[in-house]
């Protein structure tokens, strides 16, 4: 009876996490008869009676209010179709693209051309995963230069850190500009290629070690070491 697995250990699908009714399944776990069973590979998190299994891998699923980095894949009559690094493409309608007045029949590629990257916000997701985005709002802009990298989307919260602490640490240590999309697409820009590489390598390191405790201290140490070189 009771808990069969340690807090902060790795569980796999079908693994019995706890026996009896003392524990409750939360996200990533299910109840099967008397047992609480893991339903994915992930990090076990025991919070009082609730057992969660935190996701460590997987593709991005669009959510309302997420800020994502998107790429124009088609220019339509009424707006733009964007790749948001997942199974579903997003639609940027004319009215949400710019506060400028767009004349009827205007050449839309003047605003956003094929291949352009942008930081945009998801405004709506339907049950069938039709996704709308907007460019109107603070911190939304078109990317003109720099490096685009991809990380596992569920590692994004660790890369950003509490109140943005982790990403701020990277920016301060390298002098790079960094924008992290919830969809796992990240923009890094710096005039010094060496510093840009340090920023990218650090992001990759966070991605690889996100599940190991003591992450913030380790990354701080890493940045101190490499930026002194």
């Amino acid at each position, binding site marked *: 009876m009771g808990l069969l697995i340690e807090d902060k250990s790795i569980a796999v699908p*079908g693994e019995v996490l706890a026996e009896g009714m003392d524990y409750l399944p939360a996200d990533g776990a299910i109840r099967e008869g008397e047992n609480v069973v893991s339903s*994915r*590979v992930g990090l076990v998190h025991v919070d009082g009676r609730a057992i969660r299994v935190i996701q460590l891998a997987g593709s991005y699923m669009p959510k309302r209010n997420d800020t994502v980095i998107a790429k124009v894949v088609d220019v339509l009559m009424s707006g733009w179709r964007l790749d948001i690094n997942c*199974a579903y493409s997003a639609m940027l309608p004319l009215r949400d693209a710019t506060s400028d007045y767009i004349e009827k029949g205007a050449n839309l590629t003047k605003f956003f051309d094929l291949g352009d990257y942008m930081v945009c916000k998801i405004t709506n997701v339907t049950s069938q995963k039709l996704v709308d985005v907007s460019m109107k709002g603070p911190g939304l802009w078109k990317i003109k230069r720099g490096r685009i990298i991809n990380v596992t989307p569920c590692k994004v919260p660790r890369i950003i850190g509490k109140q943005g602490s982790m990403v701020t640490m990277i920016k301060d240590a390298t002098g790079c500009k960094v924008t992290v999309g919830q969809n796992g697409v990240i923009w890094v820009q710096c005039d010094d290629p060496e510093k840009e590489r340090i920023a990218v390598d650090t992001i990759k390191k966070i991605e690889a070690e996100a599940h190991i405790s003591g992450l913030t201290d380790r990354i701080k140490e890493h940045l101190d070491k490499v930026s002194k070189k």
Partner: protein
Amino acid sequence: MSYEKRPDGRNFDELRPIEAKVGVIKNAVGSASFKIGKTWALAAVYGPRELHPKFLQDPAKGRLRCNYNMMPFSGTGDRIRPGGNRRAKEISMVTEKSLMPVLDLKNYPNTVVDVFIELPQTDAGSRCAGICAASMALADAGFVMKDLVSAVAVGRVDDKIVVDLDYQEEAYEDGPVADIPIAMLPRTKEVTLLQMDGEISKEQMAEALELAKKSVDEIYEFQKKALKEKYTGEQNE
């Protein structure tokens, strides 16, 4: 006649040596390698992604699509001509059906989840090795699954019930042989793949199913360990 000794000296209920690993293909969302004896399966998962042609899309859930393929040099005899054949198509289909019961794709309407299974080297039992690798790759890709799927061939060689037949045993000529690939959910022992060809009695078949239950538990331990080691073990090549 009686079958006294297996060609490689194994006990009748003994599996060949197993090696399992996940995260072997960087480009994939999830991937796995599963070796059992000389049979080696690789699996990679891509998706959920857009499904073409559109008429195949299911607005209620994502589709699982498996593709089993032997590399041209993976057979014990002649070169295998690349490109799908009827055998590979059938195995792809039964592989899909063996994995579907554990997967929940209702959050991914209109999409496809692709599982590509490739065999660089085979010595019988390749569809079962492929299923083991595929279920690990799906788990590695972070999908919600109610269990892994573990698979192994059991069978009859002459008067004995054996597990994990190699090619030499499948081709045994001094008595009747039956080859029975089975996939199970390790926790409940529910069967998701069952095929058989050869000659076997109902009673022997029951005995074979019991042996499969025991063997599946052993295989599951390797799968579980590999999935955990990605995050806990040494990061090695």
